[in-house]
């Protein structure tokens, strides 16, 4: 989300969104004007109804993102004389389907035939394409509107070109599946019928592309009933064939003449340095050509490399052999004392004491002082590595003062900025080509591996070099999902009603990667399932206790929402058990009345972070939150009697402005292994484009949720990561995974249900739903992730 964190940090009030809005509005320009290559934010130029009244423009957080959005058809669409329509995908493809979904929106609005559409991936160039930072579950959320506008404008231009050719008014020209058809008056008044006269998009290409781009108020948008692709789920991802035959190109698959291969030995402790090294044996390995030291940077270093010793060779294998032969003496630096077990104890102790108040509603002190009983529980989570199947990798070369990089990059323009800064060169001299990403999960929006490749190429006089991370590198030198203790306390009155809620979060902050570490988290982390807690409880306090980072903290798919959903949703079920209530009923009761929560009267912080979205358009809507709970519960058969050793657990969480509930059915097998025969998920992500990819994302989120819940933990001993490969950093495999994930997508019932996030929101509810199910099956409560796959007898 978060490549723009530096900018966020500079903002004193977290008010960056409105600042950027003003900036964009002040230089806004309608597309019909002079800007042919770089249209600017139309999303804000609200012209209610447009021509057709079908699609009303609404503001999104896109305007607050660096370089906002662009909707100029000249930037995104090209039509060849043979009718092939080329559409640019400017967001990175890491498995969510964004490379298909957004161009599909353009194609649908412009009436292109998808079978004649070719999608190409843009390089990192935000001034041209708008924001490209592919994380925060934002691609569709922010670019649905500009892509519709782009497609509708292209359709208008095609119809205008046909009108000119036929010498008729544009109203008599109608784009229809890759053609423009001439209309004539029908028999009844006002009726228009199609004639046999038509021109193909190819025949109109040159004329259409030279038409002026219409302004937003001239655009007519398709009615949902006329969509060919949007909402259908019948369009496979564009790389499907290539993936199945081995031609799809990922980071390590790029080949350029004369390229070398390299790996780097990095300091085992963050902030450590090379004291001395001996490369004699490494240089004797056949194929090894050079050994270079890479400069390191102690935290906070944003995405600058950790440093170390690079081995360059004629093949990846030789480079790895060379690295094994290096003799390096490291100086560990200040973080050599980082031990996960001790750190957990520290965090737990901190969570037992008052912290910095982030949210205060009502009078929680009085509520707790006057409580008949206080119920308390602590929840812990280990660090996690993203561990995408494709480890970080980048190819870089420098020639004639031009730096060229090919990489699986979530934020290719952010990478360009950072490379330019690290090398102290103008950004115009840096090109970042985007390959497919073999998974990202947040790791690949940090461009340290690209900077390493460029620095190494520079040391080699510009020679192209493929810098490959091994799995060991990936797990030992990640930007880790934070480790945390979340402590929740409920004040109960005599009737067992929750009258007070206190939540303390203690976790090293992502901010420590960017700025001097205060030990406190910041508004983005507070906004993820903590300060935005949606329960209708009169007295609420959210506090943050200090925890200092001793490794690089980064973001992992759904970020702080994982520990917060785990804590809050486990706690509700625990409370229900204590009170002898049904956990789902208590959950619904705590969410309370149907309302859009008012952040101000709820005591939420002034800089309350709503995933960067304008709150009025994307409020916390408790009716929608409850609805996904009810749908998941009903479809899962909540309340039905299950066989022994089985249990059903439920959890709900709003994140990335979407609502997801999961009901997980657990079965403890004869060997005590926790198994998940079925998951029932309900997602309300508003207006949706590609239900097939939404289902696949939620299926995958359940698997990643299971990995995080049962298997995957990164621990430190003496500052070093203890795990090194999939043998000790385990992830869910086919031998134990959520076997059947039923996904129910909620149909939007109001035009105000805008498209919201899909990639991340499926992860947070899984772990608490699972642990609630385990409790239901066995009476055993698990409060620390990962739990291990085997339940102790």
């Amino acid at each position, binding site marked *: 989300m978060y490549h723009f964190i530096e900018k966020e940090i500079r903002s004193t009030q977290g008010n960056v969104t409105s600042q950027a809005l003003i900036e964009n509005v002040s230089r806004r320009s309608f597309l019909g004007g002079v800007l042919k290559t770089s249209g600017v934010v139309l999303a804000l130029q609200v012209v209610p109804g447009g021509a057709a009244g079908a699609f009303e423009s609404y503001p999104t957080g896109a305007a607050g993102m660096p370089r906002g959005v662009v909707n100029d058809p000249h930037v995104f669409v090209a039509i060849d004389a043979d009718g092939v329509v080329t559409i640019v995908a400017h967001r990175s493809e890491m498995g969510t389907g964004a490379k298909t979904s957004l161009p599909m929106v353009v194609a649908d609005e412009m009436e292109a035939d998808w079978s004649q559409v070719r999608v190409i991936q843009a390089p990192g160039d935000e001034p041209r394409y708008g924001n490209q930072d592919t994380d925060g579950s934002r691609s569709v959320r922010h670019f649905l509107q500009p892509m519709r506008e782009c497609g509708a404008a292209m359709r208008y231009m095609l119809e205008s070109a046909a009108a000119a050719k036929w010498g008729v008014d544009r109203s008599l020209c109608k784009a229809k599946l890759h053609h423009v058809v001439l209309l004539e008056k029908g028999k009844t008044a006002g009726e228009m019928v199609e004639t046999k006269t038509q021109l193909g998009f190819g025949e109109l290409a040159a004329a259409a592309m030279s038409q002026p781009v219409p302004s937003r108020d001239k655009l007519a948008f398709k009615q949902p009933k006329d969509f060919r692709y949007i909402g259908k789920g019948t369009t496979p991802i564009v790389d499907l064939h290539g993936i199945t035959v081995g031609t799809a190109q990922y980071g390590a698959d790029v080949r350029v003449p004369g390229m070398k291969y390299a790996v780097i030995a990095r300091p085992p402790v963050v902030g450590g340095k090379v004291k001395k090294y001996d490369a004699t044996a490494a240089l004797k390995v056949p194929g090894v050509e050079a050994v270079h030291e890479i400069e390191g940077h102690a935290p906070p270093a944003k995405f600058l490399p950790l440093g170390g010793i690079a081995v360059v060779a004629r093949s990846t294998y030789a480079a790895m052999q060379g690295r094994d032969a290096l003799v390096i003496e490291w100086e560990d630096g200040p973080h050599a004392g980082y031990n996960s077990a001790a750190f957990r104890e520290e965090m737990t102790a901190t969570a037992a004491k008052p912290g910095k108040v982030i949210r205060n509603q009502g009078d929680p002190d009085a509520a707790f002082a006057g409580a008949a009983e206080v119920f308390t529980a602590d929840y812990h989570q280990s660090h996690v590595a993203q561990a995408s199947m494709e480890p970080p990798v980048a190819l870089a070369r420098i020639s004639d003062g031009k730096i060229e990089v090919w990489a699986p990059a979530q934020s290719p323009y952010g990478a360009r900025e950072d490379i330019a800064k690290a090398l102290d060169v103008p950004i115009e001299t840096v090109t970042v080509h985007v390959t497919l990403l073999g998974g990202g999960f947040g790791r690949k929006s940090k461009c340290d591996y690209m900077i390493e490749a460029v620095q190494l190429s520079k040391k080699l006089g510009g020679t192209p070099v493929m810098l490959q991370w091994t*799995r060991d590198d990936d797990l030992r030198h990640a930007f880790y999902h934070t480790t945390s203790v979340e402590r929740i306390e409920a004040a109960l009155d005599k009737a067992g009603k929750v009258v007070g809620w206190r939540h303390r979060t203690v976790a090293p902050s992502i901010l420590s990667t960017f700025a001097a570490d205060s030990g406190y988290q910041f508004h983005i982390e507070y906004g993820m399932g903590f300060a935005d807690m949606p329960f209708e409880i009169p007295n609420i306090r959210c506090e943050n206790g200090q925890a200092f980072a001793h490794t690089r903290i980064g973001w992992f798919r759904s970020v702080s929402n994982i520990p917060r959903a785990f804590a809050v949703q486990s706690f509700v079920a625990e409370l229900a058990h204590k009170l002898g209530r049904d956990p789902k009923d208590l959950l619904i009761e705590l969410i309370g009345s149907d309302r859009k929560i008012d952040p101000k009267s709820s005591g939420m912080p002034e800089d309350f972070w709503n995933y960067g979205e304008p709150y009025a358009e994307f409020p916390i809507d408790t009716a929608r939150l409850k609805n996904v709970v009810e749908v998941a519960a009903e479809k899962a058969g909540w309340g039905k009697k299950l066989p022994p050793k089985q249990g059903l657990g439920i959890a709900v969480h709003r994140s990335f402005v979407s609502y997801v509930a999961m009901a997980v059915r657990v079965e403890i097998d004869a060997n005590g292994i926790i198994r998940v025969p079925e998951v029932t998920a309900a997602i309300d992500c508003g207006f949706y484009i590609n239900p097939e990819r939404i289902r696949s994302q939620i299926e995958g989120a359940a698997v990643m949720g299971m990995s995080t819940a049962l298997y995957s933990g990164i621990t430190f001993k003496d500052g070093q990561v203890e795990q090194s490969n999939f043998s000790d950093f385990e992830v869910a495999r086919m031998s134990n995974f959520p076997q059947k994930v039923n996904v129910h997508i909620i149909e939007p019932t109001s035009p105000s249900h805008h498209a919201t996030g899909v990639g991340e929101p499926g992860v947070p509810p899984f772990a608490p739903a699972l642990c609630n199910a385990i409790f239901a099956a066995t009476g055993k409560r698990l409060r620390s992730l990962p739990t291990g796959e085997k339940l102790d007898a």
Partner: protein
Amino acid sequence: MLTLTVNGQERQFDGDPNTPLLWFVRDELGLTGTKFGCGAGLCGACTVHLDGVAVRGCLTTISEANGKSVTTIEGLSPDGNHVVQKAWRQLNVPQCGYCQAGQIMQAASLLTKNQAPSDAEIVDEMAGNICRCGCYQRIHAAVRLAAGGV
């Protein structure tokens, strides 16, 4: 000098005989469909066929492949329409796609030796192949679909 057949073509190699097949096909032959995932036989991204049987390319040395026939994802089918590839497309299995070549090679190997695998046999065969995107539900279904003929 080592000699082996890769996707029906005879290839020779005079480098380090301990070079894993993975790096030979990728870095020497430019067959980049076979992926690097863990380097330790733990994830299956590098799965290729050695004389028709799935092996891990990162653990199998080129000397072990001497005189034998290697098939990579590029050589699985002349037109990309192996029954497993078709099933994968029919069920929209991949998300990021990185592990899928290995998954497909593993599944194809299974179906060669067992044309009607049970659910449990599919799990046994495929459990060595990690998919971090979590496509297992569809992978399992696609293997079953392929076994039934597509």
